[in-house]
């Protein structure tokens, strides 16, 4: 019985690290902070409704995340942006969007995404110029005070610090491309009358680009 237990324990010790994805030759935990010197982080939101397709964006993203280079699955972080930084090209619509019926910017000033873990990691490229991998970011999206489990598809490009990267910003540089969509109803964003579904899409597609560096 003890032998079986020891075998299971040994097997677990061997196999668990095998499932941990490593970030090339990079070691340890890397705290990546969003920095405009690396690039302009942007979240584009796209609404597709029968009456009109429109898109807007916010370029006021802030936050940081910790990439666990020894076990990418255990990466965590938090990114957020102010509701009032969202623009759609129509001032009146933006004013409505910030209002109580919609995103209620006064009571819930930020939209947040908290990364809990990365899954389905696939290293696409790993050489001296950098590492590129795809993954799913699983975490909690908080919008209008409602938090929901969310899964976003990611493409991450990690470039170790070099003379070339230092011209832009110190530290290792990171670019993340993320896509996911949110259903407005799930976050208690109901709008006025029957606007959702006619003038505004029932779900909003988000296309996010984040730029950060490991230097603070």
């Amino acid at each position: 019985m003890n032998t079986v237990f020891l075998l299971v324990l040994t097997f677990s010790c061997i196999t668990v690290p095998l499932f941990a994805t490593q970030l090339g030759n990079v070691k340890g935990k890397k705290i990546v902070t969003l920095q405009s010197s690396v690039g302009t982080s942007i979240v584009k939101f796209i609404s597709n409704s029968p009456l009109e397709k429109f898109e807007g964006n916010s370029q006021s993203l802030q936050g940081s995340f910790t990439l666990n280079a020894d076990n990418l699955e255990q990466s965590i972080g938090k990114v957020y942006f102010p509701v009032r930084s969202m623009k759609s090209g129509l001032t009146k619509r933006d004013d409505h969007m910030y209002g109580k019926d919609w995103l209620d910017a006064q009571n819930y000033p930020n939209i947040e995404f908290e990364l809990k873990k990365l899954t389905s990691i696939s290293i696409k490229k790993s050489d001296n110029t950098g590492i590129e991998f795809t993954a799913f970011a699983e975490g909690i999206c908080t919008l209008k005070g409602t938090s929901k489990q969310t899964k976003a598809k990611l493409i991450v490009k990690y470039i170790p610090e070099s003379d070339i990267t230092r011209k832009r910003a110190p530290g290792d540089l990171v670019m993340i491309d993320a896509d996911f969509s949110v259903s407005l109803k799930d976050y208690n964003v109901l709008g006025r009358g029957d606007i959702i579904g006619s003038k505004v899409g029932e779900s909003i597609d988000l296309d996010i680009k984040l730029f950060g560096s490991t230097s603070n």
Partner: protein
Amino acid sequence: MYLWRIIQVLSTSTILILSAMWILDGFQVFTKDKTEKVTIVKDELFGTDIEKREWIDDFQLGLLPDDPLLPYRSLAFPTLICLATFFLAQYRIHSKVQQSS
């Protein structure tokens, strides 16, 4: 009668000019007061194209107004007024013709 003819010509011209503006502004459903300037820049470091986006003040006429309290900021409202004026003028011209004959 000439006055009503002039009003008809002006109404028609207004509809045509506003329709041309609406087409040139890209068949917008709602009037917009900003346009997004998108510049695509090649980012050699990350090996990808980066979009630089900025909003600039630019009035674009839409079929419907951007603000329901300002209906004149649309194609639909002035078009309806001009059509009503056109048919009123036509009615007046028709009445005058009947009176004179």
